[in-house]
């Protein structure tokens, strides 16, 4: 069982889905209970991953290897490192909470709803576990279908448009990425004589810069659309605004991370020459910074609560990609941590919107005001989520953003200077949102009778709040988990980086020519 732990985590939702399909659709409560149970068990089963994970070990852990399509060189190959471990834990927790949050919100076609969530869960986990590019691609695409239905069936008024837009955008990107994958696959066969999709094998490839650049751009389209980076972000506000609450939560918390994860796991290690190419790095940094500032500015302008948070995702994910392309340990570690942070805080923000929407059926900010008087618990939770998103010290967002900025600063002062603007604007639109909705007097009579958070709703928030505080107060374990994989990636794209750093920190004594050499 131990060596199949990843498979177990991966297929628990799918197994739950099979049983779910056997429950007749009229037993709505039974379906809800079962889906929540599967979500909870899925989370519990993933906990041993943390305890079994060896922080000191380099490379992938808990590998599982099975033959799948031998004639294509495709394997069933799973494995995790620190980066995927964190994202998997985020997925199992947020996936469960998203299911839990849907108890009363979804009354229609309950069975299909939970079925889609469980399928989605397996797809997302597979993306973070797969170490075979073919397997990865299968899971990557598998995610699209349930998300399409979640937006398209249970979404808002413009759900059809939003759902197909989401699907088309991401699909267009990912089929081009497929061409990039096939190019690597073919080049590998040319150089080594065998066909394989295994990531660690493909890393042995020695490709000229020109070809790496082409493949990089193919990957870029796949990943950047998913992140989404400016200017490919236009599907995001539509999808977020129209999706049901739990759909938005999953979309923001986990789905977007598939893009950044793709950059870290595939673009950088597989295409090291292209990833340090000045033009490419500059282009990606510029797009990230535009994303940070543009997302924040557009957020300031929004009259719709959910749209505001959606655009804030563009801004926050801009930090994540900026951190990646700083290409130093701080930038990368900060980026991964910020992905988790964004998952926690934006997940909470979408849940908060969902709760008020369930009660009032509007998301116009102007409809609200002074809610803190009516819903004190709600206001506290919102405050924590908002501050965590805005990057207040002692909460998680601060640690991530700070580390990214540090990494960006090491790389280029200009980058850091521009992106700090995003932090300021972020605080502005979030605090202003809080002020307009929560503070002051209750101006709208309809808001007077609103019920505060129920126990179930509190139960959804508590783990996230606890996690946010934990990362904010004591982020050390996270950086420890991330240290090895991040160092490996940096060493891969910038060979000799750590040596040079060490040399700068402790100037080496004069070396005798020919003797000793590098340590």
């Amino acid at each position: 069982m131990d060596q199949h732990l990843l498979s177990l985590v991966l297929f628990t939702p799918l197994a739950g889905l099979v049983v779910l399909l056997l429950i007749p659709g009229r037993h709505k409560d039974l379906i809800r209970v079962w889906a929540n149970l599967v979500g909870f068990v899925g989370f519990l089963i993933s906990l041993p991953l943390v305890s079994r994970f060896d922080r000191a070990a380099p490379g992938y852990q808990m590998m599982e290897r099975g033959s799948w399509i031998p004639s294509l060189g495709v394997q069933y190959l799973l494995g995790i490192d620190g980066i995927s471990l964190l994202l998997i834990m985020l997925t199992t927790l947020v996936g469960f909470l998203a299911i839990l949050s849907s108890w009363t919100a979804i009354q229609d076609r309950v069975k299909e709803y939970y079925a889609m969530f469980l399928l989605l869960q397996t797809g997302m986990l597979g993306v973070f576990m797969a170490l075979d590019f073919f397997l990865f691609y299968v899971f990557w695409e598998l995610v699209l279908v349930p998300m399409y239905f979640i937006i398209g069936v249970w979404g808002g008024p413009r759900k059809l448009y939003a759902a197909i837009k989401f699907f088309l955008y991401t699909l267009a990107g990912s089929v081009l990425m497929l061409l990039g994958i096939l190019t690597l696959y073919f080049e590998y066969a040319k150089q080594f004589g065998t066909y394989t999709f295994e990531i660690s094998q493909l890393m042995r490839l020695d490709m000229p810069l020109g070809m790496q650049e082409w493949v990089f751009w193919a990957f870029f389209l796949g990943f950047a659309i998913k992140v989404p980076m400016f200017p490919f972000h236009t599907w995001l506000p539509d999808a977020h605004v129209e999706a049901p609450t739990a759909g938005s939560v999953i979309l923001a918390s986990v789905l977007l991370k598939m893009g950044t994860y793709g950059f870290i796991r595939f673009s950088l290690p597989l295409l090291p020459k292209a990833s340090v190419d000045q033009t490419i790095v500059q282009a990606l940094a510029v797009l990230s910074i535009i994303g940070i500032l543009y997302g924040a500015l557009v957020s300031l302008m929004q009259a719709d609560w959910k749209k505001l948070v959606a655009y804030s995702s563009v801004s926050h994910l801009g930090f994540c990609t900026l951190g990646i392309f700083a290409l130093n340990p701080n930038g990368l570690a900060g980026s991964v941590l910020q992905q988790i942070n964004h998952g926690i805080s934006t997940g909470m923000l979408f849940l908060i919107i969902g709760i008020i929407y369930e009660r009032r059926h509007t998301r116009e900010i102007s409809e609200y005001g002074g809610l803190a008087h009516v819903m004190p618990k709600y206001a506290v939770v919102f405050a924590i989520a908002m501050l965590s998103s805005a990057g207040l010290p002692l909460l998680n967002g601060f640690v991530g953003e700070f580390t990214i900025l540090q990494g960006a600063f090491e790389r280029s002062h200009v980058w850091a200077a521009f992106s700090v603007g995003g932090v300021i604007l972020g605080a502005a639109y979030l605090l202003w949102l809080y002020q307009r909705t929560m503070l002051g007097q209750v101006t709208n009579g309809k808001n007077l009778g609103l019920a505060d958070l129920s126990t179930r709703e509190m139960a959804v928030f508590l783990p996230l709040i606890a996690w946010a505080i934990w990362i904010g107060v004591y982020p050390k374990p996270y950086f420890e988990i991330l240290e090895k994989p991040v160092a490996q990636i940096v060493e891969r794209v910038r060979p000799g980086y750590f040596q040079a750093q060490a040399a700068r920190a402790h100037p080496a004594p004069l070396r005798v020519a020919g003797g000793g050499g590098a340590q």
Partner: protein
Amino acid sequence: MNAFYTSTDHFVLIPAIMLALFGCAVLLFDFWVFPDPKQRKYLVLFVVLGEVFTGFGLWRQQAYLAANGLSQLQAFQGALTVDGFSIFFNWIFVTATLIVAIVSYKYLEIAGEHHGEYYGLLLFAQAGMFFLATGTDLITLFIGLELMALSFYVMVGFLRTEKRSNEAAMKYLLLGAFSSGFLVYGFSVMYGISGSTRLTDIAAAVAGRDAWDPVVFLAMVTTSVGLLFKISAVPFHMWAPDAYEGAPTTVTAYLSVASKAASFAFLLRIFLGPLAPARVSWEWLMSAVAIATMTVGNLAAINQTNLKRLLAYSSISHAGYMLLGLIAGNATGIKGVAVYVLVYTFMNLGAFLVVVALRRKGIIGEDLDDIAGLIHKSPGYAVLMLIFLLSLAGIPPTAGFLGKYYIFLSLIETRHYVLAVIATLYVAVAIYYYFRIVRAIFIRDVTEKEPLATSFGLRVALGVSGVLTLAIGIYPEPFLRLAQTSLMR
């Protein structure tokens, strides 16, 4: 001098003989044994039995080749060649004919045109397909083509009282005859070049000439016109949407799958045989045709509201993808065409079978509105249709992805990057119109309360297609090995 008819000839011909015999038997039994229209559905059993014998013949050929380590077996002085290629395609024809036969009786009963000839025509058409996949002689190939086409002309117009069906048959017949003329003209030029009708002789003669030799070019262009018409490639696709729409849906399914597979077998035989030496002269032409086919097929499908027309345009675009495998032309590409034809058979048949079930008493059931809310009425059918549509679009883990995978890979291997990018982007276009159907099924409300017209045969056929579409996608290894055999030539 060889004996006119040897036992090898017989051995090679056995599947076609079986098809013809059972086809005739159907016609005889139709009016001798089953004069009562209600009993006509038993004729399906004759088709099944005929396919069992045909399949047995194929299986023996396959076993014989394997046992003797032969890559091919020639008969009738090289007019017929049994090899992995022909056996692979013939299995596809057997499966497709079986599936179509067992779903047809209910449909034809509802349409009020249940006649025994239908089953005979199915078998005769398949006999034609046998010669298209097995023939290596221009005359044999042409006769096979006409046998198949004539059967289809009749079947497309099988709904005698419906204007649409008659119109479709007429259009198909006229354009088909026209294109056959081109084809025969091309054949005559090839004969002129080589003085022989054997494909190998022609290949040798073409190889002896310059690739841009005007006579070879003339033969290539005229032959292409005929072949491209059969696979409904642009600009010779005009007949397809009308014929698909007007024909009985079961025939549409058969036409779109088996006829297309046979025509592709034919096309590969010609282009990888006699015309292979002149590759430089047709590669650009075929590239242009493939791009045009994908463009027209995909873009025209977007606005269709009739399911059969939509699927017709989609099947045009699939022909474009298959052509790409030929353009790449390496081992991966040819294997890609074989895999593509295989998966296309099941997914496209499956999609049409769901449309077959929409035809109910007094309801034509071909519009997007007719399928609306299917998930509430028949969840099983709805989910199956989703699988077929995802597969048609090429989304993993369904079979369709595998077909596209090989095509894309072969394009990359042969450095046709532009074609590869165009082909992949059209996947995104395709998802749009396939998901119009998905949207209707899963998101819109029921507009028509009448339950679907199902039958035992339809359920079996749908089950088989659905399971295979998923199985080939999830565990493709055995199927890929099967396709590998089609390369051994």
